[in-house]
């Protein structure tokens, strides 16, 4: 009798374990992946607040006498204020340009069936997949022809145009979720096509616009190759290019300085991500990319 009870309860425990195992495993895996991603980041943050001597004694040790001195040094040495200003300018205006250019084509692709729609879309996707390097030389030539090499406006235009295809894909997906009847209602109420677009479609696409803008902002902030190739004057450099200096002898020997520079360069993205996180991870966005 009692042995049967034991058997029963053991069976129940086994069964519970069987259901729990995948969940435990998944959780462990998630932690492991997070550690892989966050480990280096943590290391950089820790290094950035350690005096250089401490780092040389033990690269992985926690700081004994934490200091913000490295931050002050790189900020001044690299003229980080100016770099940040430039990056901010490129990211805000470049993304705005990309989104603005994408709005009308995205709407058209979400609503109308022009002949060859499939191919137009395929062409756009190709635009997404082209590696930057392949367009580097033609873009360089074009900018030279337009006398826009080494100008801020030139880089903004490049970023805007380069970001447009992905914005079209994101916005089109979002706009297809807007019910047609709402447009028809606006039409019945007397709105012209243009009024329908800016009084109804645009406000309803706002969540998609925010998502697209944020992603584009991050992409431009991190972008390096275009800025490196198309700009020459230090005054125009964004953070990514300005930080090349950290690669020089003066900084490379002191590990805490590049680390501090890296941390500074990531702060705006971290802020933006926190602000837009809910939008990006919400179902809206998922719904907007498929479809």
């Amino acid at each position: 009798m009692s042995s049967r009870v034991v058997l029963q309860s053991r069976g129940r425990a086994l069964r519970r374990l069987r259901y729990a195992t995948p969940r435990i495993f998944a959780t462990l895996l998630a932690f492991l992946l997070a550690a892989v991603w966050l480990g280096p980041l943590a290391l950089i943050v820790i290094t950035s607040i350690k005096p250089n001597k401490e780092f040389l004694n033990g690269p992985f040790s926690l700081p004994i006498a934490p200091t913000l001195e490295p931050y002050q040094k790189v900020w001044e040495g690299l003229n980080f204020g100016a770099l940040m200003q430039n990056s901010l300018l490129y990211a805000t205006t470049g993304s705005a340009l990309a989104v603005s250019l994408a709005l009308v084509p995205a709407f058209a692709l979400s609503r109308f069936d022009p002949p060859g729609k499939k191919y137009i879309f395929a062409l756009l996707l190709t635009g997404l997949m082209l590696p930057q390097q392949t367009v580097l030389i033609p873009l360089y030539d074009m900018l030279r022809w337009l006398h826009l090499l080494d100008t801020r406006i030139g880089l903004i235009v490049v970023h805007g145009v380069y970001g447009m295809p992905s914005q079209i894909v994101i916005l089109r997906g979002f706009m297809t979720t807007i019910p047609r009847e709402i447009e028809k209602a606006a039409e019945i109420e007397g709105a012209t096509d243009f009024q329908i677009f800016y009084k109804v479609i645009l406000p309803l696409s706002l969540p998609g616009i925010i998502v697209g803008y944020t992603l584009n902002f991050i992409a431009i902030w991190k972008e390096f190759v275009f800025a490196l190739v198309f700009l020459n004057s230090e005054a125009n450099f964004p953070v990514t290019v300005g930080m090349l200096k950290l690669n020089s002898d003066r900084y490379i020997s002191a590990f805490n300085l590049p680390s501090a520079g890296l941390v500074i360069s990531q702060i705006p993205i971290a802020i933006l991500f926190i602000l837009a996180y809910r939008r990006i991870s919400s179902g809206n966005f998922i719904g907007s990319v498929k479809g």
Partner: protein
Amino acid sequence: MAKVSLIDIEKRYGNHVVIPRLSAEIADGAFVVLVGPSGCGKSTTLQMIAGLEPITAGQLRIGDRDVTDLPPKDRDIAMVFQSYALFPHLTVFDNIAFGLKIRRLSRSEIETQVRGVADRLRIEDYLERQPKALSGGQRQRVALARALVRRPGVFLMDEPLSNLDAKLRIEARSFLAKMHQEIQTTTVYVTHDQSEAMTMGDLIFVMKEGAIQQAAPPLEVYNNPANMFVAGFIGSPAMNFLELSPAGARLVDPANDFDIEVPERLRPALSAYHKPKVVVGLRPEALRPAPRGAEPAGAPRLAIDVAQHLGHETLLDASRGPHRIVARVASADDSKIGETRPFLYDFDKMHLFDSDNGVNLARVGANAGANK
């Protein structure tokens, strides 16, 4: 205020004909219901009147104007959609004011008109809310307010009640009917629900495959259907159909002991009919089991299969051989499942239909349908 005339309207998608040559006249101030099963072309017809679907051929007139090629905004119409199609990013006030703002009315004018119509529809307390904060019934009234506020010549309604729950739907029905009596604006109303059509319309257009099968007042459609389709579509439970062979003034099916007498008024039509089979139509309320003890000899005997007790009445499913009927009887009826009872039928409510094309024999030669 305007009448609507559809003159030989045709709708094709490529080679696919959706509506072949449809003509109808909707009088000024009428409440017309387009009803039919899904795919019958009722919504397409409405969208063509609205100007949301181009008309392939033919002419559409609203009032005295040819509006065939005019955009919706120039047709003097307003529309209520099934999904309400409110603008989710605007408040109730701005939703109602949308069309007025586009027409550039003065701010004070807009204010008065919106408040007036909101008052009438009892949504004045929600004007500052967004549509998502409203219940289904409230949204429906906002959609109605948005249509009403512009005082259009014609109201178009595309299944406006089908997103409401059953109780609200009945309320909204009488509300809409009352509204129409007050404002007397020509209304074209699309629904697939025959009871909605019966209760709301001055005139019902029963549609099937892009053609109007019958255009008549509700009771006329019910009591004198043009054909089997109309007879079967209008009324719930549907009319019973029995396929029998004419034999003089009687209709028989010897194999199943069926022998029904044809009333005097239908005999001329039957004698002019020369096909081997004819379809008898009897509504559920025209059939009942003979009272116990007084069972007439000739009555067809049917086995009771199912009794659905609805409280105020009972529906009996009965059958014999291939013939199946539903009878609507008083709830006091004591029929037992499995028993066989002789059934009486109401002479005055009998219909005869052509077994090939479904045409109501009593109407042949008279006015055989409005649009045929």
